[in-house]
C-alpha cells in the first residue's frame, strides 16, 4: 500500500508538471534565476578564495645576504629561521640562481641584459625567501630578524645586508586587510543572495499553488489525506528544481566560457571556465541539491496553508 501510494503521488506530480505547462515553465525560469544567483555567488566566492590564496602566496620576506657570506653560513642562517613556528618555508636562492632568474625574466628586454653584461660581475645578492603560515605572522618574523641578539649567535649577523619587510609592510598590511574584508563580504553576499533566491522561489511556487487552491479543496473533499494532497505538489516542486538545476548547469558553461577572457585579464592565469570544469562534480551536486531542496521545501510550506483546516 505504501509503495502504491508513493508511486501514485510521483506519477501525479509528473502529470501535473506536464499538464500545467505554462505554470511549470515560469516556475522553472524563476528557479533558474535563483539557482544561477546561488551558483555564481558560490563560484565567485570560491574563485576569489583561490585568487586571494595566490596573492597571499606572493607575500614573502626576502633577506638579501651579503656578498662575502659563505654558503654554509647562509644555510645555517636558513636553518635558524626554519625552526620558527610561524615560518612555513625558507627557500635559498644563490647568487648564480638569482642572476639566471633575472636573465630569464628580462630576456625580452635587451637594454637591461646589455647593462647587465656591461657590469660584467654578478651584481645580485643571494636571497633567503621566507614564507609565513599566515600573512599576519610576517610582522613577528620580521621582528625576530631585526632582533640582533637572536641573530647574532655566531657570526651570522654580519652576513645579512638587507631585510625587505619594512619596504613591503604597507603592501602586506593592506593586502591582509583586503583578504579578510573580501572573505567577510563574500560570506555576507553569499548569504544574502541565497536568502533572496529562496524568497523568490518560495513566492513563485506559492503563486503556482495559489492557482491550484480550489483543486486542493476538491481533493480533500473527495477524501484525500493531507499527505496524498501535498505529495504531488512536492514532487512537482522537486521537478521544477531538477529541471532548473540542469538548465542552470548547461547555461553556466557558455557563461563561464564568455567570462574566461575577462577574468584572465584580471588574474593572469586563473580561469573561471577551467575552475567550473575542474570543480564540476562539486558544483553539480550543490546545484542539483539546492534545486531539489528549494522546490520541495517551498511546495511543502505553500500547500500547508491550505491544509490547516479540517
Amino acid at each position, binding site marked *: 500500500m505504501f509503495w502504491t501510494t508513493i508511486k501514485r503521488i510521483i506519477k501525479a506530480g509528473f502529470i501535473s508538471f506536464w499538464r500545467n505547462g505554462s505554470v511549470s515553465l515560469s516556475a522553472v525560469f524563476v528557479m533558474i534565476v535563483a539557482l544561477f544567483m546561488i551558483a555564481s555567488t558560490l563560484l565567485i566566492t570560491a574563485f576569489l578564495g583561490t585568487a586571494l590564496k595566490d596573492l597571499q602566496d606572493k607575500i614573502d620576506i626576502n633577506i638579501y645576504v651579503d656578498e662575502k657570506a659563505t654558503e654554509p653560513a647562509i644555510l645555517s642562517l636558513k636553518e635558524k629561521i626554519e625552526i620558527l613556528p610561524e615560518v612555513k618555508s625558507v627557500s635559498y636562492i644563490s647568487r648564480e640562481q638569482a642572476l639566471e632568474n633575472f636573465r630569464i625574466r628580462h630576456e625580452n628586454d635587451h637594454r637591461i641584459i646589455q647593462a647587465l653584461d656591461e657590469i660584467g660581475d654578478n651584481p645580485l645578492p643571494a636571497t633567503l625567501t621566507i614564507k609565513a603560515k599566515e600573512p599576519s605572522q610576517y610582522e613577528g618574523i620580521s621582528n625576530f630578524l631585526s632582533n640582533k641578539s637572536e641573530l647574532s649567535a655566531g657570526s651570522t649577523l654580519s652576513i645579512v645586508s638587507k631585510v625587505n619587510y619594512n619596504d613591503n609592510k604597507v603592501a602586506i598590511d593592506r593586502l591582509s586587510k583586503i583578504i579578510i574584508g573580501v572573505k567577510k563580504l563574500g560570506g555576507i553576499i553569499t548569504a544574502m543572495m541565497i536568502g533572496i533566491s529562496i524568497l523568490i522561489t518560495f513566492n513563485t511556487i506559492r503563486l503556482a499553488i495559489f492557482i491550484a487552491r480550489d*483543486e486542493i479543496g*476538491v481533493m480533500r473533499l*473527495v*477524501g484525500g*489525506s493531507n499527505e496524498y494532497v501535498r505529495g504531488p505538489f512536492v514532487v512537482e516542486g522537486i521537478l521544477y528544481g531538477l529541471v532548473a538545476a540542469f538548465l542552470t548547469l548547461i547555461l553556466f558553461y557558455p557563461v563561464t566560457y564568455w567570462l574566461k577572457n575577462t577574468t584572465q585579464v584580471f588574474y593572469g592565469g586563473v580561469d573561471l571556465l577551467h575552475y567550473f570544469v575542474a570543480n564540476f562534480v562539486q558544483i553539480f551536486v550543490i546545484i542539483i541539491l539546492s534545486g531539489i531542496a528549494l522546490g520541495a521545501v517551498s511546495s511543502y510550506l505553500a500547500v500547508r496553508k491550505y491544509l490547516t483546516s*479540517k
Partner: protein
Amino acid sequence: MIYFDNVSKSYQDGTVALNGVTLSIKQGEFVSIVGHSGAGKTTLVKLLLGEDNPTTGSVSFDSVNIKKIKAKDMPELRRRIGVIFQDFRLLPNKTAYENVAFAMEVAGKADEEIASDVPHVLELVDLTKKMWNFPRQLSGGELQRVAIARAIVNQPDLIIADEPTGNLDPINTYEIVQILKKINDMGTTVILTTHNKGVVEALGKRVITMDHGRIIRDDSTGKYAL
C-alpha cells in the same frame, strides 16, 4: 444514520445560518432539502462534511459526532460520503477517467480494481465515449455526470448533492435526477438540496423545507411548498 441535534450555526459577523435544527435521516432515505438562497441548506451540507463546526448542538454520522473527529481521520469520513456540487468541482487537469480514479486512489484501492471499476461507473452515467476528455471539453450535463461517477465509485453510504442541477438545462436536470434516483434504489442514502420545484415534485420523496436557518416543514412525501 444522520442526526442533527439542536444545531445552530452563527458567524462572526452575526449572521445566523442555522437556528436550532433537529433532524434525523435514516439509511436508504432520499431526502430533498428545499429553501430560498440563504435558508441554510449549504451550511447543513458543510457541517455534515466536517468543513465547518456547529456553534451549538451536534451533528452525528453513524452515531459519531463529526466535530470530534480528528483532522487526520477526516478523509476516512469523506470517503464514505460522495459529494456532488452545483459547480461540479472536478480537477481541471485530470481527464474524466482520472477524476473518477482519483477518488479511488485516495481511498487506497488497488490498481486492478480502479481499472475495472472506473470504466464501469462511467458507463453507468453514459460517458464511456468521453472517458479521456478533460473537464474543459465537456458540457455542463457531462461534467455533472462525471461528478456523480466520482461520488458513487467508492460505493459510499451517503450521497450529498448540493444544488446539482442548478447549472443545467431541463433535459440534463431530468437525467441527473434519474441517476440519483437509481443510486437511491440501490440502497444509498441521498440528500439533495435544490430549489427546483419540478425536481422535488417528480421525485415524490421526503422533503424538508428550510427558511432563515430553521426547518419549517418536513413532509414524508412532500411537495415543494415555498
